[in-house]
């Protein structure tokens, strides 16, 4: 039996594509990533390990895993090539031709990890739990990355860090 149908998948498609775009920072690589993510999802359409789990974080987690695998492979190649010839350690990712505005420019300058968390939480509106699921992280790591990502983003958009008295004490539950 099918636990999600094509319409549900179509609904998540723009969000997935956005995620791919900001993971890869390169349009053709992002399209390839989306393609393999969709293929994997459709291949497992009828055999999800937890059919009741929400669709969106599941799809995001597939994409994120594929992305990490790809990066690992790429870095292995890089190491291999590096041993043969002293190539530059990592080619600068092709920046988008035109960054729409300051928000995007600042977002683009975040680290990939921070971008992923901020994108899922702030833009996709996913719960922390689902974000942790999608990125394969413990929830505590999601929270600290989110915190750092927001601080970094603020700093980038305002040009200077804002000294704000944040409570350093954590509530004891």
């Amino acid at each position, binding site marked *: 039996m099918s636990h999600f149908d*094509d319409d549900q*998948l*179509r609904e998540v*498609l*723009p969000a997935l*594509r*956005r995620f791919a*775009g*900001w993971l890869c920072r390169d349009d053709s690589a992002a399209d390839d990533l*989306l*393609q393999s993510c*969709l*293929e994997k999802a*459709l*291949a497992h359409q009828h055999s999800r390990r937890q059919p009741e789990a929400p669709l969106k974080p599941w799809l995001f987690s597939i994409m994120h895993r594929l992305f990490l695998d790809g990066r690992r492979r790429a870095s292995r190649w890089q190491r291999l090539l590096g041993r043969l010839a002293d190539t530059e350690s990592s080619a600068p990712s092709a920046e988008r031709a035109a960054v*729409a*505005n300051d*928000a*995007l420019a600042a*977002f683009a300058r975040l680290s990939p990890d921070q971008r992923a968390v*901020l*994108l899922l*939480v*702030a*833009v996709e*509106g996913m*719960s*922390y739990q689902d974000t942790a699921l999608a990125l394969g992280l413990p929830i505590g790591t999601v*929270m600290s990355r*989110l*915190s750092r990502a*927001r601080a970094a*983003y*603020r700093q980038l*958009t305002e040009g200077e860090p*804002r000294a*704000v*008295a*944040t*409570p350093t*004490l*954590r*509530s004891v539950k």
Partner: protein
Amino acid sequence: MNTPRTPDQDELHAYADGQLTTARQQEIAAYLARQPALAAQVEGWRRDAQALRVALSQPAQLSPARFAPERIRAGMRRRRRRVLALCASWLLVGSLGLIGGWQAQRLSYDRSHPPMADALVAYRIFASDRARPVEMDASDSSRLQQWVSARLGRPLSLPDMDSYGYRLLGGRMLATAEGPAALLMYQNAQGQRISLYVRPSTRFEAGFRGDRQGDGLAASYWYRNGYGFAVVGRAGDPGTVAVQQAMPAAI
């Protein structure tokens, strides 16, 4: 009435993202009303999120048709078919090579090892021996038959070819790679000789038969019940073909 807990950093993020219960959201809103600096920070997060949402959800982000599930699925099917076809063709090439090689090997083996070749060799050696073509002559035919049958491991009758003008001279036993071989020698009034040669063989199925000529000899052979039989004579002799035709039924 207990005073609300002071929210920690994580909870402030959760508040900004609207991920708390309504009651807790309200408590924190009330708390922030008394903490303008913190409130400004949380408000900044919200503004940033809003700005990112606007900036990132542009219509340009809409998915092209190639990512429609049907298209993806069709592409996967196409690729699977291609892979299957490739596998099938490799399998075909492999098995053709295997079969071809096996056939070729078999063909070349058959060519270099014609069936019952040893029968012709035996004929060439013993039929030309005028003095002693056989080990045991046919004067006591029942003793000859018992001896040959016992050595061969199979009852063998001594076919009578008198009506074709060929008289049984006698027989001899030979050792071959396949096991014991019996050779019976016949001779007509002109001194022309024909041999019947029998030995075990599983090389061909029962019923396989054939004949061939070479080096002035004519051989006909057949296989039955795990034994190979051959009748060999001189190619030109008129009686050879007749005896060859009569022999299978006479045994």
